[in-house]
């Protein structure tokens, strides 16, 4: 565990090596990426096992000195970190492997693997960070990795726009985080989590300040985790290669916001307002994104909105003081959402389209991908016995127990939506007759299917680490020795579980009725206003277009006017004054002795007058 810092260095090595020498390696660069990510996964696993028996380990050294203040960098292995390490490195390793098949033949495959390495490095670094500053550093680097990978197909205008949007939207959140972090620093005198928590506990920070900083930091989390209103970049980010969507925009980076809030949980619990904000934003995002997901036609966009919605769930959990529930759902979601994305990638790989209206009947063609996708769908819909069921249940209980009744019912509705749109997706893709030519559709190679199988297994069994039936191992372990994080398990009424089950089954049944059995019209919403609003994502993008963008452009244009007329005017004035003086001066230089004489005489006369009036220099 003392050497845990080495974990992020494997992918960094991969990045550096591939960026410098990758061009010569071509396809072989994939092996380097895979091997190094495997190394960090194995090491993470070791660290996790060690963490079961030994206490938190933390090591730091000075990074930057400012006067008397020393900012440190280092690493920390506590329960949350160790768990995240394994999740991140595992998914990263699987995605590395999967990409070998998916990206096969791309001439820039070494760049792709280099970027993956950079991202994995940053994400693992983020997870290990013992203080806010270091978190922020890796937080930004994670964003960089995401930006590069979204824009991997740089020659497509959509990719360019999506990459830019992702970077800028998350940057807006990051500035919130930066401000919150700096304010907190001047209050607590340190960026270290421990010292911040100690200061909060000791009451050294005023409650307004706690609320303010917590909300500012939460804005950062909103940006990364795609919470309303900073969510619009996430669906667009699907322009990147699909494995990337699985890694970054489903399992790891977007969960960083949730992770950040979880890391700073004692700060949030110290302010009821901040906690409430987190819960409301989370719940609203959950239902908001789920409603959009109902009508999308792009397989990846449906999954993207479902990610946004699930992240909302996690935020709701944390905002309802359900630390364990949030982290638990973060873990299960990482597995089943990565599975869904990889399976979607496999489908896209096979049919070369992302439009679900053009798919159908793929169950027979894709004999491996189909069932795997079904497992993922069942898990996310919260069908009993699958992992999503347990974690979602925890969240609902947490929301109920915390007294957020309204939010609880919102979450229940969102769960219904989720089940519905996920099975709509499943039925449209795999059931029924194929709607286009499917002759050349082939199952993906095993290098792609094996990672999916691993994830599928995890999507089923990951839930059993924390169940009300067999024991809440995860919760007990996570909160062990840290009472500030709340209880390992929150007791809730049994009917919640039943309601959740009924709701999700109802959603599945409805989807089956419409999209598989067709007892109801497929275009049940028709071209109604509601449909258009949903399909266009509540016109949020357009709203930003006409407000923020226009305003910014307007200010720029206004300032350009100031620049051209005012500032340049000053320039012209200065230049004019100088050349004017020059003209006046040159009038005297006309070559006539008499003019020179006149000037000289006048000069002398003035000097004499001055001299007599002032009485001379010596006076």
């Amino acid at each position, binding site marked *: 565990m003392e050497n845990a810092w080495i974990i992020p260095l494997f992918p960094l090595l991969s990045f550096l090596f591939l960026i410098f020498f990758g061009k010569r390696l071509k396809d072989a660069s994939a092996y380097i990426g895979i091997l190094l990510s495997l190394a960090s996964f194995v090491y993470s696993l070791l660290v996790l096992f060690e963490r079961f028996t030994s206490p938190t380990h933390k090591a730091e050294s000075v990074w930057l000195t400012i006067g008397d203040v020393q900012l440190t960098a280092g690493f920390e292995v506590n329960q949350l970190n160790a768990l995240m390490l394994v999740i991140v490195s595992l998914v990263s390793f699987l995605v590395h492997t999967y990409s070998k098949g998916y990206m096969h033949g791309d001439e820039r495959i070494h760049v792709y693997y280099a970027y993956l390495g950079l991202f994995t490095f940053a994400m693992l670094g983020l997870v290990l960070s013992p203080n806010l500053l270091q978190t922020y550093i890796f937080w930004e680097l994670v964003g960089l990795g995401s930006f590069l990978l979204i824009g991997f197909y740089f020659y497509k205008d959509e990719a360019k726009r999506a990459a830019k949007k992702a970077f800028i939207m998350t940057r807006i959140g990051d500035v919130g985080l930066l401000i919150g972090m700096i304010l907190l620093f001047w209050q607590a005198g340190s960026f270290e989590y421990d010292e911040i928590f100690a200061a909060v506990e000791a009451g050294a920070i005023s409650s307004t300040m706690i609320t303010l900083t917590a909300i500012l930091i939460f804005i950062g989390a909103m940006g990364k985790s795609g919470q309303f209103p900073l969510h619009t970049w996430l669906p667009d980010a699907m322009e990147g290669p699909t494995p990337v969507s699985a890694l970054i925009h489903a399992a790891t980076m977007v969960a960083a916001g949730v992770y950040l809030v979880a890391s700073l949980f004692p700060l949030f619990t110290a302010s009821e307002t901040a906690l409430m904000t987190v819960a409301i934003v989370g719940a609203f995002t959950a239902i908001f994104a789920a409603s959009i997901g109902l009508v999308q036609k792009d397989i990846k966009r449906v999954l993207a909105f479902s990610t946004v919605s699930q992240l909302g769930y996690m935020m709701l959990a944390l905002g309802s003081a359900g630390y364990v529930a949030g982290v638990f759902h973060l873990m299960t979601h990482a597995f089943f959402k990565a599975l869904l994305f990889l399976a979607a990638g496999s489908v896209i790989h096979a049919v070369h389209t992302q439009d679900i209206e053009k798919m159908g009947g793929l169950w027979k063609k894709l004999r491996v991908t189909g069932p795997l996708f079904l497992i993922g769908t069942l898990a996310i819909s919260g069908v009993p016995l699958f992992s999503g069921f347990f974690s979602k249940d925890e969240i609902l209980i947490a929301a109920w127990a915390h007294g957020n009744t309204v939010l609880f019912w919102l979450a229940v509705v969102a769960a219904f939506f989720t089940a519905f749109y996920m099975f709509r997706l499943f039925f449209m893709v795999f059931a029924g007759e194929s709607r286009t030519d499917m002759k050349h559709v082939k199952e993906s190679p095993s290098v792609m299917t094996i990672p999916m199988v691993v994830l599928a297994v995890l999507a089923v069994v990951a839930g059993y680490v924390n169940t009300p039936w067999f024991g809440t191992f995860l919760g007990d372990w996570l909160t062990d020795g840290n009472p500030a994080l709340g209880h390992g398990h929150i007791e809730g009424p049994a009917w919640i579980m039943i309601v959740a089950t009924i709701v999700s089954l109802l959603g599945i049944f409805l989807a089956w009725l419409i999209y598989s059995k067709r007892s109801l019209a497929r275009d049940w919403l028709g071209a109604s206003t509601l449909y258009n609003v949903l399909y266009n994502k509540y016109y949020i993008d357009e709203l930003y277009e006409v407000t923020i963008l226009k305003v910014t452009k307007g200010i720029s244009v206004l300032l350009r006017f100031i620049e051209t007329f005012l500032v340049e005017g000053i320039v012209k004035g200065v230049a004019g004054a100088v050349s004017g003086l020059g003209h006046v001066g040159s009038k005297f*230089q*006309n*070559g*006539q*002795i*008499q003019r020179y*004489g*006149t000037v000289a*005489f006048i000069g002398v006369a003035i000097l004499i007058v001055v001299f007599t009036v002032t009485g001379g220099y010596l006076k």
Partner: protein
Amino acid sequence: MSSVPLSLYLALALILFCIGLYGALTKRNIIIVLISIELMLNAVNINLVAFSKFGVMPSITGQIFALFVMAVAAAEVAIGVAILIALYRNRNTVNIDEVNTLKN
């Protein structure tokens, strides 16, 4: 013997000098410019002589200087008129505005 006070000599010299200066700076005819310069020199001479008689320490030096100035003025006029004649032969003019070749 009632004597004329120093200030009147100085006033006369001042008037003479101003007339000379005005002529030297404004007239376009080189001959008149030369004559004006003579006027200024003579104004100086009057001052020198006046101071040599009525100054704080009367002495003969002023008058000697006046004689020097006359000699230098004669030489100057000789050279000036010589240049003027050469110029007239070349340019056929004695107008000062047309003699600005030094400028370029």
